């Protein structure tokens, strides 16, 4: 489903972030990306939905080389990849409901199904109570959950979750990870970048460890540390 071949990334201001990354992730997989702050986890994910372009190498998502994708096709790629952004990226002047609905609206989904699916997704992340709140009126964890709801509302074949539990208490974190796991079992490829040691250790899934832009470990049934 996802294939990185000798991918390197340097930013225009000369910062080198990824060095010769190669990685192959199958359709049914659930992968944790771990590594210290600044290792390049977020950057690697950004390559997949083309928020960033690789400096060299191939980024293949669902048999398509993302870097060579026509500009017009990018929105359709992105609709197939649900993303939980590390910094949420909620639209500030829209309520939680509208934010989540937006991801469905862009696909042209009919109004009736939108409302049903949005409420479902918000229920899954435990946010029914705050549907009409604006992002400014949410706690950190609530924003994070709204963002998760938006990422999954569309049932995308690929789900990228960048530090999805950074602002959640252990119980809620655990619920969210269970949710991601359930989604994975419904045939969705799931990538989770996280620093949450206890979750990685107890899930026993494939772990890819980045350090200074290089893959230093790729382990099935791995843990957070070595």
């Amino acid at each position, binding site marked *: 489903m996802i294939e990185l071949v000798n991918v390197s990334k340097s930013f225009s201001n000369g910062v080198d972030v990824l060095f010769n990354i190669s990685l192959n992730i199958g359709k049914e997989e659930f992968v944790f990306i771990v590594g210290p702050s600044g290792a390049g986890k977020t950057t690697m994910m950004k390559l997949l939905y083309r928020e960033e372009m690789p400096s060299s190498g191939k980024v293949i998502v669902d048999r398509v080389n993302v870097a060579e994708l026509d500009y017009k096709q990018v*929105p359709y790629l*992105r609709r197939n990849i649900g993303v939980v952004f590390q910094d949420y990226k*909620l639209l*500030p*002047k*829209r309520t939680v409901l509208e934010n989540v609905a937006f991801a469905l609206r862009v*696909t042209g989904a009919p109004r009736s199904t939108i409302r049903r699916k949005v409420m479902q997704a918000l229920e899954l992340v435990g946010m029914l109570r705050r549907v009409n709140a604006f992002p400014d009126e949410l706690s950190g964890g609530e924003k994070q959950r709204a963002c998760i709801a938006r990422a999954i509302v569309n049932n995308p074949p690929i789900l990228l979750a960048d530090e999805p539990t950074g602002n959640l208490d252990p119980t809620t974190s655990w619920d969210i990870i269970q949710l991601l796991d359930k989604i994975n079992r419904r045939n969705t490829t799931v990538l989770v970048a996280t620093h949450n040691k206890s979750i990685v250790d107890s899930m026993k899934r494939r772990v890819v460890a980045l350090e200074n832009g290089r893959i230093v470990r790729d382990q099935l049934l791995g843990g957070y540390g070595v």
Partner: protein
Amino acid sequence: MFSNLEFFLIEALRSFRRGALMSLVAIATISVSLVIFGLFLLLVINLGNIVGTVSSRMDIAAYVEKDISLEEAGELQLKLGKLPGVEKVEFISKTEAWRNFKQEFGTKLELDDIMTSNPLPHTFSVKVRTPDLLPAVAKQVSNFQLIDEVRYSGKFIDQIRTLVDAVRLGGAALVVLISFATLLIVVNTIRLTVLARETDISIMKLVGATDTFIKWPFIIEGVILGVLGGLVSFIVLKFSYDAIILRVAAALPFLPLVADQRLLAVIHLVMIVGGTALGMLGAYISVSRVLKSEV
């Protein structure tokens, strides 16, 4: 596309409402620049009109020395009136002319004592439609057998004609310039409101919105801003112009101000439609720019 229209409309209205202060500031700016535009337009039209009227008052004097009967005079007047370019022909009999002359100089000169007979000729005063027709008409008038001499103040008319042309040209140039300025101000104002939402736009792109999908609500919002700006300026301009012509008509009744309701309606329409078009254009340009600069 069109199944989304309702949604886009709702979107536009919402963002309009939620960014109320910015929207109001934008509308105020648009209204103000449209009012200036409208005032300029009316000013130029009126200037053109005034100069036009003044110049149309220029006339040709055609003298007849032979004593002619009233009948003959009437006949000639009719013929002259039928010449192309002629607006109006007046007949001033030599008696009348003499009376006028005496009125001008008479009180202090005992003219009747000095002169036994009236030395002045009969005069036809020929008004032409536009001053540039003067030479041609004068020539035609002089071709009539009865007419002995034709006069019009050539140099003065030339000056007036140049002035009229200059005012018309200058006015047109000004209107073009002000239109351009208004366009710039409106487009820039809307661009500022769009630039303020760059982050929103980049988020929309990241969650899979196509450029078209993002554009429409902005364009509709631009149209709303433009329409409201146009409406406000229309109201301001209408009432102030009505007040102005009333006052001017009272104070300077001889000034020919434009009060043709149909022309005014057209100008008002231009302002509302112009505001709308500019709002749309401004939004389109700005959002396209921002979209291109985003990932």
